[in-house]
């Protein structure tokens, strides 16, 4: 691994941790369930530096911020861990299989969808155990996820363009 990559991963992880911690303050319908705004960073990392960097950033973000917030290995950690990993994997697979099919918005939407799906699944398995309750919040979450997905996509797009413009040719 090159030092520049390490530096970038560290920098992006720091951004992601900041966003993740901030997001933790926002209320959601199911406790420990998050919208995944930190996906912006994962998205930008994926497009700019590839899947493994994105996965590194996600893992560092999830683990470190849970330690900072104090939820490490708690339910919130399991939720954000599974959500983060599954959304990164989904985006990574999509990006490597169809690099030209989806833009950042599409990738972000896929990420948000898998983020929510994984979190709902974990919430069902670990906490709720009532399929009805999960099903009732599912459409709402898909809608919220779609909205944040689009917003994340656009912000990610700007971020990617800025970084590619500023970096030396």
């Amino acid at each position: 691994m090159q030092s520049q990559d390490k530096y970038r991963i560290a920098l992006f992880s720091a951004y992601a941790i900041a966003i993740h911690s901030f997001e933790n303050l926002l209320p959601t319908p199911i406790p420990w369930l998050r919208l995944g705004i930190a996906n912006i960073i994962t998205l930008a990392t994926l497009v700019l530096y590839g899947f493994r960097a994105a996965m590194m950033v996600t893992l560092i973000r999830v683990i470190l911020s849970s330690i900072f917030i104090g939820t490490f290995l708690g339910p919130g950690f399991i939720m954000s861990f599974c959500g983060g990993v599954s959304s990164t994997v989904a985006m990574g697979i999509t990006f490597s299989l169809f690099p030209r099919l989806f833009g950042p918005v599409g990738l972000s939407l896929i990420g948000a969808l898998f983020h929510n799906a994984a979190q709902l699944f974990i919430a069902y398995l670990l906490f709720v155990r009532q399929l009805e309750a999960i099903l009732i919040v599912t459409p709402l979450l898909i809608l919220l996820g779609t909205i944040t997905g689009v917003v994340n996509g656009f912000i990610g797009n700007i971020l990617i363009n800025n970084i590619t413009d500023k970096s030396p040719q």
Partner: protein
Amino acid sequence: MKSSEIRRDKKVLTERMTLADILLLAALVTISISGFVFIKEAFPQGTDVRIEVNGKLAYRLPLNTNTTITVKGIIGNTMVEIKNKKVRITESPCLNKICIHTGWIDRGAVVCIPNRVTVFVDRSEGKENKAIDAITG
């Protein structure tokens, strides 16, 4: 060979939303909205059937059990049928039979005024009664 340079050629696709993006967005919005509709259909508001005679609770039973019960009203017996999460009055001693013509309901109420029988479909009991397992008297 920096990894950033390897990825540089993909810069072009970050400029715009692709067709696939728009299709995906449309699909997700459609799924979530139809999801709302589906949820509303699959989990109706009413979960309990409450039958009152002369304003007094006579029966309370869940909407998801298929049964037919006879309710003794003021002037005779009213037959109430519960089937497929819907309720109707099938027989009534009253003259105008408005209650029977109301047909199946899954929310709200059917009333037979001459026989003083009211069939409600409502959510589970209020806060205070919710913890109560049975009522004597």
